[in-house]
């Protein structure tokens, strides 16, 4: 005689994971939205000042990129949770697609950050050389 006691019914597990997935994905969406809203406010403030503030502009853009990457990581966590209970081929495919998007975005954002840092460094190096040239009488 086999006695089976169901300690954790599968339906309960499914419901619990469903709630967790919603929470994690909502957190990811919130991070992306708040990051973009913050960047929007900063861009508008800097734009209203109207001066050449390229260093400040780069800083805002890099922060926006970091928010995007963080939000993406939450979305990926949500998708991993989603596949924990009943992975189907569709879910696995979607997880793979999102992971690919995240990896590509991470890679390109990293390259952009390095590029912009190099541009700033070049600008700082060039500035002291240009000043005496502009100051010399013709």
């Amino acid at each position, binding site marked *: 005689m086999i006695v089976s006691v169901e300690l954790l019914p599968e339906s309960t597990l499914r419901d619990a994971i469903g709630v967790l997935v919603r929470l994690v994905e*909502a957190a990811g969406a919130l991070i992306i939205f708040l990051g*973009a809203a913050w*960047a929007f406010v900063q*861009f*508008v403030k800097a734009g209203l000042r*109207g001066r050449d503030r*390229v260093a*400040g*502009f780069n800083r805002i853009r890099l922060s926006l990129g970091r928010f995007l990457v963080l939000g993406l990581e939450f979305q990926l966590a949500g998708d991993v949770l989603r596949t924990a209970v009943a992975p189907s081929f569709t879910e696995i495919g979607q997880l793979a697609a999102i992971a690919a*998007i995240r990896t590509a975005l991470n890679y390109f954002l990293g390259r952009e950050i390095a590029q912009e840092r190099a541009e700033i460094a070049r600008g700082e190096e060039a500035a002291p050389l240009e000043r005496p040239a502009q100051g010399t009488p013709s």
Partner: protein
Amino acid sequence: MNAWLQAAAVLLTGAGLVSAAAAYRITREARRALGVLLDFLTAAGLLRLAGDPAWDGILTAAAVIALRRLIGSGLALSRAAP
């Protein structure tokens, strides 16, 4: 939740247009303004990925990111050319 996400994505697209105009005013470079717009479009695409991700949303986000890189490298090439 999907209706909220859609509304947020539309808001971000509008915010991206305004931010791109502000970025152009700050830097006087169309390349940087376009980069800002594409950052915001990427954020909007990622918001559409949350909730119940459908293949449409995933393909849209992937297309925006691919387009962003294509335009970015095209502009970099045109800048490098004499």
